[in-house]
């Protein structure tokens, strides 16, 4: 069996934010490798740097020091346009606050990123339908976000994140604004997404969601520690 290259490889990355009251070290020499097919959950108290790490992994931000490779290429040497292209084609994001565009329907929200990626119209239509069926919302395709519940909005957001067949999906507190039951439904959906071959990295302080991951990592004060639980399958 040939070893696949890691999707993301962070080595000793730090992120320091200059603040008026003094610099804040949000991440301190964090090293993490995410392999294809991984399901990683990162937990920790508020302000420990979970989201910061997620943003670095997703090429939304760049480290102050250290090395960060995405699919073997250094993120630090990339220009913003290139990182933008990677985010559009290779990474999917799911946000705590969903961030669906309120003036677009569920269908249009999912189709938007495909259109931006240059996918032909016929292919977009087929893919959008496929994704909405995948998340169980095909019959709500024409509804605006204001007409959807929180769980439904998050499912649309997940469909949007999968639209361009990314190699990596990053989710930042995806159940943060949902009740337990709805959170479970989202968890089930993530399980299916990972089972179908998509690499997942989730930031959460929902223990039930974190328990579903094959790798559980803990963060504290900007540093990463592996959980003594779950070995890799």
């Amino acid at each position: 069996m040939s070893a696949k290259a890691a999707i993301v490889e962070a080595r000793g990355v730090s992120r320091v934010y200059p603040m008026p009251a003094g610099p804040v070290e949000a991440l301190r020499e964090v090293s993490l490798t995410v392999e294809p097919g991984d399901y990683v959950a990162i937990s920790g108290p508020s302000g420990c740097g979970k989201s910061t790490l997620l943003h670095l992994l997703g090429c939304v931000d760049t480290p102050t020091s250290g090395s960060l490779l995405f699919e073997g290429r250094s993120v630090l040497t990339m220009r913003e346009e290139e990182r933008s292209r990677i985010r559009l084609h290779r990474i999917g994001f799911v946000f705590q606050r969903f961030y669906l565009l309120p003036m677009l329907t569920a269908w249009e929200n999912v189709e938007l990123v495909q259109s931006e990626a240059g996918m032909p119209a016929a292919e977009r239509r087929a893919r959008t339908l496929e994704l909405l069926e995948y998340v169980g919302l095909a019959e709500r395709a024409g509804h605006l976000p204001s007409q959807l519940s929180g769980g439904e909005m998050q499912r649309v957001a997940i469909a949007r994140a999968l639209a361009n067949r990314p190699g990596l999906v990053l989710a930042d507190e995806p159940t943060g604004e949902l009740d337990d039951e709805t959170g479970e439904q989202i968890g089930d959906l993530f399980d299916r997404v990972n089972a179908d071959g998509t690499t997942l990295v989730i930031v959460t302080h929902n223990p039930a969601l974190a328990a579903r991951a094959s790798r559980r990592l803990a963060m504290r004060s900007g540093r990463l520690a592996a959980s003594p639980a779950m070995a890799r399958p």
Partner: protein
Amino acid sequence: MSPLQFAGRSLYRQPARAILGLTGVAVVGALLFDMLMLSRGLIVSFRDLLESTGFDVRVTATEALPGLGPAVADAAAATDELRGLPELAAVVPVRFGGAAVETRDKKTRQVAIIGSETRRRGEWRLVEGADLGDGTDGGRPDMVVNRTLAREEALAPGSIVRLASTLPGREFRVTGVVEFPFEATGESMAGVTLRGFTLAFPTARRDEADLLLVASQPGVGTDAAVAAIRHARPDLHAFSIDEVLERLRHAEFSYFRQVSFVLATIASFFALLLVTTLLTVSVNQRLGEVAALRALGFSRRRITLDLLAESALLVGGGGIAAIPLGLLLARGLDSILRQMPDLPSRLHFFVFEPRALALHLGFLVLAALIAAAYPVILAARLPIAATLRRESIS
């Protein structure tokens, strides 16, 4: 989804804001369009008036405008000499004066009197009756009157007009009713022959003309006619219509040019400031969305195009609505300014020109770009991670 479609949806999402913004741009844009029309309106209108007389050159004794300087002495000889020039098709001497005329109720009224020879081309347009003849009827020279005088003194062809400013009062016989190109609203005007003029103003010097109206030969051109006159009679001052207008543009009409410039500048600044404010506030309210789109892979270029499209829709939509609104407003403003006394009734301050429309559309394009500049900078330079973090906390 194209940037325009996206922008349309963004505006549609907040319909009250969009409608109010469009309305504001339309109203201010109408004002701006009007100021563009005002900047050259007087000149264009005055040119039309001057050209309507059929004379393209004016000759005076000095560089003063016709009627405001010394008269041309030995007018008959000057007229004959100029008529001998092959470049000229017609030369007509004209005199201006003001006299008191007895009214029906035995009072007097001021009447502006134009004296011209009977070989006319365009000093006035006959509306009713007959034009001036050379003879006199029972010692009464011919006179044509304008509609105002005719209406207010119940004059018609055959009526007698008696001057109160001569002793004894000189009488004239009305032969017709005419329209003078430069008559002001409510102004009483009359036209007489040159001989009739000397009878109306016995103390005025004879053989003088306040103005010589000249028409160039077809195909020769105004400039050639002016050059010929200047060569033949360097003591006289010949003006083409362009030269008269250029002078008026720098002097008498300059105030309205200045005012239109000042108001247009203020209106532009106002519109820019407010559209920029609307867009900036709109972007500030959507920072989370913008950051999310950037995180999803939307490029800065795409975000910029979306905002430019939104600005274009606001400014463009309002600006296009401003055109019919501006034309309507111009009619109202023109009707106010035309109430000024002593202004030719056919003179307009606001005149539509394709140039004004082109400038207006050009401004719209510029305004859309400038108004979007700051919001674009805000959105394009947005720190994605920090914004997402801040939005999550808030």
